[in-house]
């Protein structure tokens, strides 16, 4: 009786009691507080010492005085006196502290805001507390029952309403009885009890531990599920009585079963509020809270040593002498005894460490955004594990037990400390041991010799806190921690968003390859009694098995391998013993190692290592062979032949699973990884039969041809020597939509721009048209020499890429290899002249600036850009194919021609140089989706895109060696953006600000973009991402993403289809490769092979470009049936009525019944557009 009362008091006045505790600990706390202060000062001193290294003692002392007296604001001689009139002493203190204790002021302020945002509403807390109190009263009203046999126990319940949730195997005959007595203790556990709960969109659950009384147990009950059976009865009895009691007492709830943390040994009762019309009912569904009633065991009821991870506690009959250990079972039993105890332990830490609570919340959010949680399927590392690890690290954690975290740390420091620990210490090969014994500060120690399972071992309870983790999930956690640590160390850019605010839990962007596997039912047969006791569930067993096989098969080819079951709700009614709809589907996520993943040979041990050789052969079976390598070694190895567009890793996965898991398992394996690769057109090349669409060899051939031409022209005998010829085209930087194919003149990218500069000369004319004429004279000379003396063919064309400059000519060169280059000449005079024109342009300055930008793009920017992108494309293997697919997608949406290629390439580089919160993509699918995702979430009105175009994000720390953007350079670019936005806040003129080292202005490539186009890109990417998130990736969703939405346009002109596929260098789809002959020569008149649709669109743009935005496919030859369409929308401005002026510039008609006003004459425009198209136009469809 007395015990019960105690329990009630404790529960009912949880909050007050905690307050009493606070009072009790007041003295202690203040001591901690002092310590915290000391730590801060210590840190502070440290820094100051570093700063002022080399000054004499006296000064240093005085400085210290200054800094301490400064807080009181009493010092009068301080030079900042004037400043202080405006700013309080407190401000100074805060500013100073945050700069030291947090990464920067802004980080601290952001954390503060975030905390406010995450706080649970007071009203909700109030309501739920009321409900908890009432629930507690109800539980105390449940009458006891004693000594029921198994049959009696089962018969006690109406099996249609309540079933005892016995774990497998269900008991049949038992020599002990079941009872229900008043719980020893009912208390809040988990984050709500610790007050580290956060508000979550889908609500949270509150954990309430109900401790079974001691007298129900015998010391040996930890064996063979006995305690769990007793618990199951206890739970069913509780539920059975709660149903009528809750109804009677106006607490309408729905009770269901739920496996806590996916642990099938640990069913709990989940209570959800039901909304009713009765005002007297206490409902809390609006708070979105639900309550978990966790039946737990009294603390220390069993001998914990018997439940160590290496002990066996489930005795089964087996042939082997020694039974395997049952770590999962043991951990379940132990954790059931310690819910309340761990809360107390964490609570003590919280009391001693001011920022502990906030740091826990940060950790919790960090984990949540990355999809981690305490449940097995979410990786087994959640808020609880994070908090325990942090507590342990406050008591040591280093190799010699040195403290990793200090009590005086700020929330940011604590959080970063834990992330750093996770990133740098290996808890799988080594382990951390700590003691949760409250009151004794026992040092936590890291031991580098571990158990090869993720381990944080509590010496007090003998529990491995990480028991729900596997090698695979631990690896994943470590990866994430490493990425985040890298972000936390970034001093240039504010990384707050990607660390805490952005959700990065979408499989197809998280992993390079995502496979769906459905397990055939006959695999259940291999799940025998021994497997059952060590893995507990079939789920755990299969995951482990797949992991072991794939890890062995893929080895160095992958960096991360995650296997999880497809998410199904593990909530099930209390009339069921276990959930009925268990899923047999698994998701396998793989991150690739770009250097290893495509190697054709898997190397094994040397021939003379017999034992290893045997093992190797046993694993690979008939695939294994012996090979002699050039170096002279003879090695076991497996040689793979790549299949069309299928990544090698996928072939290996299929082979290994077929061999070791189930003979036909590869039939059950689905993935969309090839669907994206298949979208890229295959090049029409002789070697096409074994070529993949993502290959870059054709780009290399183009490059070679360019270099040959380079040599020839440089050696020509010209009046002025050639200084350089620089590449400036998409093909020469591995990013043209189509692979460069010789003689493929219909390819819109056939002509490769190159920029030629001569030796320095002062004799260039000082006027722009004469300058262009002089350049032409040089080009004519080269033209003559090339045509007469070499196998190259060349001719001169007019160029209108720079507005108003009508005298530019280009030299078009056709190389014997079959490629085309277009040479433009840059002199040192050009830029000067354009800038002079800008300075002189007076009223038309804006327009002239655009002209200058165009010049800069074509002559200077493109060269720099090509150089940078070429380098990066070499480094990021999947960049080339990703950017090409992205261009293809843009073209399928009729958007490509609105963007400069360079702008697209820069945007596509974003996930490669700055993938946060994801990681650098190593597959086409991953890269493409990350680009879409970035664009969908890019709020370009407020955010700039500043790219640090260096090879790797994790390069050497040596400042001098890397050429990363400095803080100063970054700041300058940011200021450029701020300046632009201050005059154009809603982005009417400039939408995308994309800057890099090459272009600090940020507008070079995005200057001429129109607002509707930018908005459309954002809208389309959003729609695509939403579709994928909602319906998942499948062939049909991918096709949908690549289908243009023509109904959004004001009109669409269907144009004649022209066969340009093979002359664009594309292998026509659905044909036999051997029947198609590759192109071998240029046509007599190249222009006959050009795409006439482009000329039509060009003409339309010239005539109506000021009132209509035209969209059409740039690559007519790509896709089904060479079809194209010209769609357009009217610029809203052009549709308004206007006063009669001769410079309106649009085709207009007089407004009827009004004098002097004109309005656009749409019908006449439609008519004339059709006439302009002639036989190219088939039909025009106008939106009503």
């Amino acid at each position, binding site marked *: 009786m007395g015990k019960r009362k105690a329990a009630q008091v404790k529960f009912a006045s949880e909050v007050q009691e905690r307050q009493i505790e606070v009072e009790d600990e007041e003295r202690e706390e203040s001591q901690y507080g002092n310590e915290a202060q000391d730590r801060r000062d210590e840190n502070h001193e440290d820094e100051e010492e570093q700063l002022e290294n080399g*000054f004499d003692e006296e000064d240093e002392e005085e400085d210290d005085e200054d800094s301490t007296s400064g807080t009181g604001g009493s010092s009068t001689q301080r*030079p*900042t006196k004037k*400043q202080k009139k405006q700013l309080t002493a407190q401000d100074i203190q805060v*500013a100073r502290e945050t700069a030291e204790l947090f990464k920067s*002021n*802004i980080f601290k302020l*952001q954390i503060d*805001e*975030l905390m*406010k*945002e995450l706080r649970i509403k007071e009203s909700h807390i109030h309501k739920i507390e009321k409900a908890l109190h009432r629930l507690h009263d109800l539980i105390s009203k449940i009458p006891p029952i004693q000594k029921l046999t198994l049959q009696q126990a089962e018969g006690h319940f109406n099996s249609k309403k309540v079933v005892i949730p016995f774990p497998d195997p269900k008991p049949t005959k038992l020599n002990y009885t079941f009872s229900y007595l008043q719980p020893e203790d009912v208390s809040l556990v988990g984050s709500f009890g610790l007050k580290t709960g956060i508000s979550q*969109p889908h609500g949270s659950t509150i954990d309430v531990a109900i401790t079974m009384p001691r007298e129900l147990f015998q010391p040996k009950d930890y064996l063979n599920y006995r305690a769990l059976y007793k618990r199951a009865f206890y739970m069913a009895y509780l539920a059975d009585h709660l149903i009528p009691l809750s109804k009677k007492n106006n607490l309408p709830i729905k009770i269901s079963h739920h496996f806590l943390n996916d642990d099938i040994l640990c069913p709990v009762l989940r209570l959800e509020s039901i909304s009713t019309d009765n005002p007297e009912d206490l409902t809390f569904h609006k708070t979105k809270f639900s309550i978990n009633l966790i039946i737990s065991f009294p603390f220390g009821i069993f001998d914990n040593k018997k439940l160590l991870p290496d002990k066996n506690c489930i005795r089964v009959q087996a042939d082997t002498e020694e039974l395997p250990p049952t770590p999962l079972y043991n951990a379940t039993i132990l954790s059931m005894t310690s819910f309340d105890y761990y809360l107390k332990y964490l609570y003590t830490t919280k009391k001693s460490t001011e920022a502990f609570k906030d740091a826990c919340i940060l950790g919790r959010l960090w984990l949540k955004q990355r999809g981690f949680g305490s449940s097995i399927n979410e990786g087994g590392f959640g808020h609880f594990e994070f908090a325990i690890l942090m507590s342990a690290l406050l008591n040591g954690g280093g190799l010699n037990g040195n403290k990793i975290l200090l009590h005086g740390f700020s929330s940011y420091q604590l959080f970063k400390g834990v992330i750093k620990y996770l990133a740098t210490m290996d808890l799988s090969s080594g382990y951390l041991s700590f003691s949760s014994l409250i009151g004794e500060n026992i040092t936590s120690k890291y031991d580098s010799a571990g158990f090869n399972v993720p381990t944080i071992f509590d010496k007090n309870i003998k529990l491995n806190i990480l028991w729900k983790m596997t090698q695979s999930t631990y690896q994943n956690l470590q990866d994430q921690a490493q990425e985040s640590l890298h972000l936390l160390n970034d001093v240039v850019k504010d990384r707050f968003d990607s660390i805490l605010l952005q959700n990065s839990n979408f499989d197809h962007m998280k992993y390079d390859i995502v496979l769906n596997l459905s397990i055939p039912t006959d695999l259940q047969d291999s799940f025998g009694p021994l497997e059952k006791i060590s893995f507990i569930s079939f789920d755990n067993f299969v995951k482990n098995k797949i992991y072991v096989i794939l890890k062995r098969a893929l080895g160095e080819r992958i960096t991360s391998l995650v296997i999880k079951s497809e998410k199904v709700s593990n909530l099930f009614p209390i009339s069921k013993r276990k959930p009925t709809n268990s899923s047999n589907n698994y998701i396998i996520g793989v991150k690739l190692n770009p250097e290893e993943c495509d190697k054709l040979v898997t190397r094994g041990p040397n021939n003379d290592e017999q034992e290893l050789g045997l093992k190797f052969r046993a694993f690979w079976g008939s695939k294994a062979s012996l090979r002699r390598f050039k170096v002279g070694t003879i090695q076991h190895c497996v040689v793979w032949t790549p299949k069309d567009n299928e990544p090698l890793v996928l072939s290996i996965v299929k082979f290994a699973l077929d061999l070791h898991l189930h003979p036909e398992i590869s039939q059950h394996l689905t993935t969309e990884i090839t669907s994206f690769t298949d979208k890229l057109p295959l090049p029409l090349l002789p070697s096409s039969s074994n070529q993949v669409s993502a290959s870059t060899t054709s780009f290399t051939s183009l490059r070679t041809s360019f270099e040959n031409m380079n040599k020839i022209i440089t050696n020509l005998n010209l009046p002025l020597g050639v200084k350089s010829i620089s590449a400036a085209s998409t093909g020469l930087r591995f990013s043209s939509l189509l692979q460069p194919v010789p003689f493929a003149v219909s390819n819109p990218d056939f002509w490769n721009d190159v920029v030629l500069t001569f030796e320095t000369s002062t*004799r260039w*004319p*000082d*006027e*722009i048209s004469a300058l262009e*004429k002089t350049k032409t*004279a040089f080009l*004519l000379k080269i*033209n003559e020499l090339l045509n007469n003396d070499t196998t190259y063919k060349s*001719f*001169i064309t007019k160029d209108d890429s720079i*507005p*108003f400059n009508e005298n530019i000519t280009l030299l078009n060169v056709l190389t014997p290899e079959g490629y085309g280059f277009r040479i433009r000449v840059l002199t040192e005079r050009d830029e000067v*002249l354009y*800038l002079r*024109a800008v300075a*002189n*342009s007076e009223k*038309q300055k804006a*327009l*002239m600036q655009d*002209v200058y930008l165009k010049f800069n793009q074509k002559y200077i920017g493109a060269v720099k850009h090509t150089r940078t992108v070429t380098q990066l494309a070499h480094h990021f293997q999947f960049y080339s194919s990703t950017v090409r697919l992205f261009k293809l997608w843009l073209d399928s949406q009729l958007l490509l021609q609105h963007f400069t290629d360079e702008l697209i390439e820069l945007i596509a580089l974003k996930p490669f140089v700055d993938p946060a919160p994801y990681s650098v993509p190593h597959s086409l699918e991953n890269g493409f989706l990350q680009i879409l995702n970035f664009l969908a979430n890019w709020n370009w009105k407020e955010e700039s895109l500043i790219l640090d175009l260096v090879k790797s994000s994790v390069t050497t720390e040596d400042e001098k060696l890397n050429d990363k953007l400095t803080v100063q350079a970054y700041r*300058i670019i940011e200021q450029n953006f701020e300046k632009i936005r201050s005059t154009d806040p809603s982005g009417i003129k400039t939408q995308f600000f994309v800057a890099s080292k090459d272009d*600090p202005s940020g507008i070079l490539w995005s200057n001429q973009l129109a607002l509707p186009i930018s908005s459309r890109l954002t809208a389309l990417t959003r729609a695509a991402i939403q579709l994928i998130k909602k319906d998942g990736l499948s062939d049909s969703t991918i096709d949908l993403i690549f289908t243009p939405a023509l109904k959004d346009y004001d009109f669409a002109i269907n144009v004649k289809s022209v066969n340009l596929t093979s002359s664009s260098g594309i292998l026509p789809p659905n044909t036999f490769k051997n029947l198609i002959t590759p192109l071998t020569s240029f046509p007599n008149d190249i*222009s006959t092979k*050009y795409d*006439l649709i482009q*000329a039509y669109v060009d*003409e339309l*743009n*010239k*005539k109506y*470009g*000021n009132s209509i935005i035209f969209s059409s496919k740039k690559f007519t030859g790509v896709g089904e049936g060479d079809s194209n369409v010209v769609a357009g929308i009217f610029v809203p401005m052009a549709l308004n009525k206007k006063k009669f002026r*001769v*410079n309106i*510039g649009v*085709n*207009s*008609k*007089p407004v009827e019944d009004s*004098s002097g006003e004109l309005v656009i*004459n749409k019908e006449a425009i439609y*008519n004339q557009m059709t006439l*302009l*198209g*002639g036989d190219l136009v088939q039909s025009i469809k106008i939106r009503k």
Partner: protein
Amino acid sequence: MGVASEIKGFYVLPLEFPESKTFHYIYFKKHETKSSESTNSNQNTSLFVYNLPINTSITSLKKFFQDVSIGATISSFIPSKLTDYPEDVWLDLTSLTSDLELNNSNSEESESQKLPKNCGIIKFIDKSSFQLAFNSLKKLSAQSKPTKWAFETIDSTYYLKKYQNQILNSEEISTQVSQALIDFDKAEQDSINQIHSNLVDEDGFTMVVGSHRKTKAGILGKQRLAATVELNKAQGKLKKKEREDFYRFQLRERKKEEMNQLLLKFKEDQEKVRLMREKKRFRPY
């Protein structure tokens, strides 16, 4: 009342196009040139037309006038240079980059540059011809009767030609280029002669001009330098070498400076975060 037949001195003329039920409207009036050329013969012989249909050329105009007023002979047609150009205003880069007298382009060219989009000037051979055309057009306009427009049909060869025309004949271009360069040299020489005779700067000194400095603009440098990051970097390198931490006051000053900087940044950051909060940036879900 329907469509007005006259707006602000312009006559409105509906035109009928093949395969179309609706009409195109052109607006015309007598072309009036500024006084300077008033004595010129083309006074009162031209028609200013606005909102011309696409691809209007002298041939299509000739055909049109044959239909509506036989005997009105066109001598020339100056279309706006902007009609088939994506920009709205024409910029003459030559005059913006150089003040050499390079006006070898004829007046028609410059007039064409000044005309707004879709406008044109039709010149008739004499006054009577003009009057004839003008009157018959006025009549048609007053009747508001749609008139047939002779549209030259276009087919795909039109576009093929466009592509072919991009390729320049190297002989033609080479004669053009050499002529242009000769002209330029001449203009330059004239300018240099002029400069050498009277170039006096602000302070009254006669400036000495190097042979390769060719124009006034070049010498006086009317150019603006784009500020770049590199420039700042270069300036950063020119750091002073003297010790800045020798005297106590220096230290104190530096400390003060640092503190102020810190506070300033803190205030800035507070402001920034306040703005972010207003934009609801801190929603993690």
